[in-house]
């Protein structure tokens, strides 16, 4: 059964140095507040996993929390480069970053294989592409029925998956709505999971019998962090702050301005500081 606890406790109990950590959210519901807590607690040597490492992983990489990253698209969507990610790969600053690079289709299939307790995923993928030449974790299998050669990648099995969701009930059941991404698979593939939520309610009341619900017994910890997806968004609560994504390009371009930003907004901040974003944008809610 999921424990409802403060974010700092949830992270201290579940994220350890050296862990394979997946923080998912496909543009929507990105767990920024929880990622910042991981930075504040000084976790290091993490093996970061995420389909679209955007600003949050730029921050984790920039503070030197990661030794490696498995991913399929590392940019600031619609804006450009992730400067901290580039600095780590191009100049090994603040430390070298080992990368394991896939396509979206392969990552999505690999999460699904992890959730299904299979050792690997197969797909009709990577045909004519160069990634298999540089990533030894892209191999192939032959269909035993037709003889077709298909791409194979190992299942993703994180030590801990961290996601943000709209709400949970007091028993710890979680509801996710809107662009649901790969979060359900990422939680089911992981040994442990932390879910931050906008609201904790008496009755979950899923809007449809087919709603995406993670029952309490597959979630390890839940923390109530309103606004915790800012500058990403929470469908039904607040909109994506595109202006901040655009501004991040400037902040992260330079090592000094990045480090100053992290000190002011992460190291010297707390999870409750995210609440003002939930309040501010709520009128623009979807």
């Amino acid at each position, binding site marked *: 059964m999921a424990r409802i606890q403060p974010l700092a406790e949830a992270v201290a109990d579940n994220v350890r140095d050296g862990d394979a950590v997946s923080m998912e959210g496909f543009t*929507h519901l990105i767990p920024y507040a929880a990622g910042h807590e991981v930075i504040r607690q000084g976790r290091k040597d993490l093996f970061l996993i995420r389909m679209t490492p955007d600003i949050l992983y730029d921050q984790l990489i920039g503070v030197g929390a990661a030794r490696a990253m498995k991913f399929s698209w590392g*940019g600031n*969507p619609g804006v450009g480069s992730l400067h901290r990610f580039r600095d780590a790969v191009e100049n090994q600053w603040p430390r070298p970053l080992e990368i394991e690079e896939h396509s*979206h289709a392969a990552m999505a299939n690999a999460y699904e294989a992890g959730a299904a307790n299979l050792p690997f995923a197969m797909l009709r993928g990577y045909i*004519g592409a160069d990634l298999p030449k*540089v990533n030894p974790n892209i191999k192939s299998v032959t269909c035993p029925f037709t003889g077709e050669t298909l791409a194979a990648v190992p299942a993703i099995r994180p030590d801990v998956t961290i996601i943000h969701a709209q709400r949970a009930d007091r028993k710890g059941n979680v509801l996710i709505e809107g662009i649901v991404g790969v979060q359900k698979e990422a939680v089911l593939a992981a040994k442990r999971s932390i879910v931050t939520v906008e609201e904790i309610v008496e009755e979950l009341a899923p809007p449809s019998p087919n709603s995406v619900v993670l029952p309490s017994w597959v979630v390890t910890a839940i923390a109530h962090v309103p606004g915790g997806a800012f500058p990403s968004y929470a469908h039904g609560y607040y909109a994506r702050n595109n202006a901040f994504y655009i501004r991040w390009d400037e902040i992260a371009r330079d090592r000094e301005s990045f480090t100053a930003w992290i000190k002011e907004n992460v190291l010297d901040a707390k999870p409750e500081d995210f609440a003002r974003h939930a309040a501010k944008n709520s009128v623009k809610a979807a």
Partner: protein
Amino acid sequence: MTEFTPNEMMTIAAARELSNDDVCFVGIGAPSAACNVARLTHAPDITLIYESGTVGTKPDVLPLSIGDGELCDTALFTVSVPEMFRYWLQGGRITTGFLGGAQIDKFANLNTTVVGPYDRPKVRLPGGGGAPEIASNCGRIFITMALTKRGFVETLPFVTSMGQGEGGNHRERLGLTTKGPTRVITDLCILEPDPETKELTVVSVHPGVSREQIIANCGWPIKFAASVIETPVPTETELAVLRDINARTKKAHEGAGTGKEAA
């Protein structure tokens, strides 16, 4: 005739490639603008799909990312990302993929991964995202990007997604049954693969553009088809629709917040 920029000509020429019957997997940036101009002009019933899982979306402003809330709010339905890539893309349900890229070669292979060697890149680009499987699983691919010497190169440092490979029947030899890139729409001209060699050749030149300009902006000795037409100028309606959506988009992206608050 209203004045227009090369970039506006590119987006409008790209939009014209699409029809009401298309089920289109939309890349972010220039492809997204073209697909939505098509939807707001001659192809109101086109199905636009973004890889975040939104199917049949009708955004009022162009998304900054492939997963802006606007896409989900206006979609017919939204699926998970594994379902999007497995059932809809790999399942062969998508007629047209619309991609951009940082670099392209004469066989319309694309690079969005690195400039320089993979292990010690001079420039680390974002990577492939959905492109490798969009390029192989959609019925056909349209590409839109500005024609520049930096972008149109003789040899790619890295093939992120396969176009016509080494040319000729390379796709067939790899077992692919989809067409791959069939049109490349730039700000100066439109290119198509030669029916035999599959090398990109100029088939349509935008109004006011010279052959010399096209040759000077391409990183390989570019060929022209035997019959080259002039791209029709943008109509008043096309320009009005494009400028409207760009203005709405700019306002929305800058207005979502002051950008001053910290996260």
